[in-house]
């Protein structure tokens, strides 16, 4: 079961986020960490990338909340010492 989960996770294709590729393309070589001036076309791309990123961070936060509240799974392995 655990191996199956690991295998499934390993085979999930990496997510290409527009924000990351946009940051690579727009980050100025002058030492500024974030791009701040945009052409009209780049501005549209930045808005689209933000919408995508907000949805992604929202899904991640939701997944984090779900994982934090996973119900206990009873073990089938007999552990007689547990009661002690």
């Amino acid at each position, binding site marked *: 079961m655990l191996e199956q989960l690991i295998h499934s996770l390993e085979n999930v294709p*990496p997510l290409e986020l527009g924000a990351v590729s946009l940051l690579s393309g727009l*980050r100025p070589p002058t030492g500024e960490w974030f791009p701040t001036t945009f052409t009209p076309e780049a501005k549209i791309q930045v808005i689209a990338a933000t919408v995508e990123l907000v949805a992604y961070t929202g899904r991640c936060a939701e997944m984090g909340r779900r994982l934090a509240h996973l119900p206990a799974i009873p073990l089938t392995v007999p552990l007689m010492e547990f009661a002690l």
Partner: protein
Amino acid sequence: MKPQDFHAAITFLSAATLADPFLALCSAVAWLDPLALLDEPLIEPDYYAGGDEWVNIGAAWDISRVCFPAVYAETTQAIRTESSSQRLADQVCTAINRHLVGGELHDLEQIFFGIPFFGLGVDLTDTDFFASPQYTPLVEVYAWLGVAVDPEQTYSLPDNLPEAAQVADVLAFSLRQTGHPTHEKLAWLLDWMFSQTGNTAADYTDEEIYEMGIQPLAWEPNELEFNNLMHAEAAEIIGNAMQGLDLLLADDGLQAELRANVESLSKQMKRIKKEKPHDRPQPDAQRLSRSLCWTDRPQQPDEQRSPDDLEGLQVRRADAA
């Protein structure tokens, strides 16, 4: 360290963060979605700072992230470059207003009071309402239904308004039964005049909403969608009602039919009320409407709406907001 060394170090760090997927993601989040890193809202929704524009901008930024991601994107960038809080607040306010239907924020400060709600109902107690040229003809239509509205002195509701509303309800039911677009629009006019459309925005005025203690909806995507839908539907209902008013005023025959049916219906309902004082007219609408007569009217050139569209509005009437 020489300046060029410092610059080289930054360039190296910049390239390194983008080469590593995790650091690249962190950089992208810090750049485009910095509020994702907060566990609590930047500004608590019940915190109201009056004229502090930066607090208003902070609250709007928070709300935009949830309700208007495109506005959030623009605000995130503008915060880094715009130094005037007033100018930025105006920009954010305008951007949010582009996504609101039926109402708007006059000032970003209003963001703390929930989604703006605008009542579009007929205000029989407001002299200014009937002073508006587009609504002045309603006085005459009310008179045909036995409701005396004095545009100069309308400070209280006419005594016979409930009875007239019952008559209007049966008339609207009967008009819809014909399936004719003109009658359909006249039915919406009667519904709107007597606050019986079933749509809160179309049936109530701002003052009535305030007096009833109805709280504005919270800034949440589902509430926003509901509010926009309700106001869009109200605009459609009132648009139909105003077309119905124009058609009625332009058609002497329709006016005569309306007055004759009002007279006939009023007599019937008075008789029923005497016989069964506790009976409600609504269950009788089907029976009462049988005695009413509406003549088919020629199709108006501006009646672009298809029967299917009217049917859609009719269906929504059943479960309007």
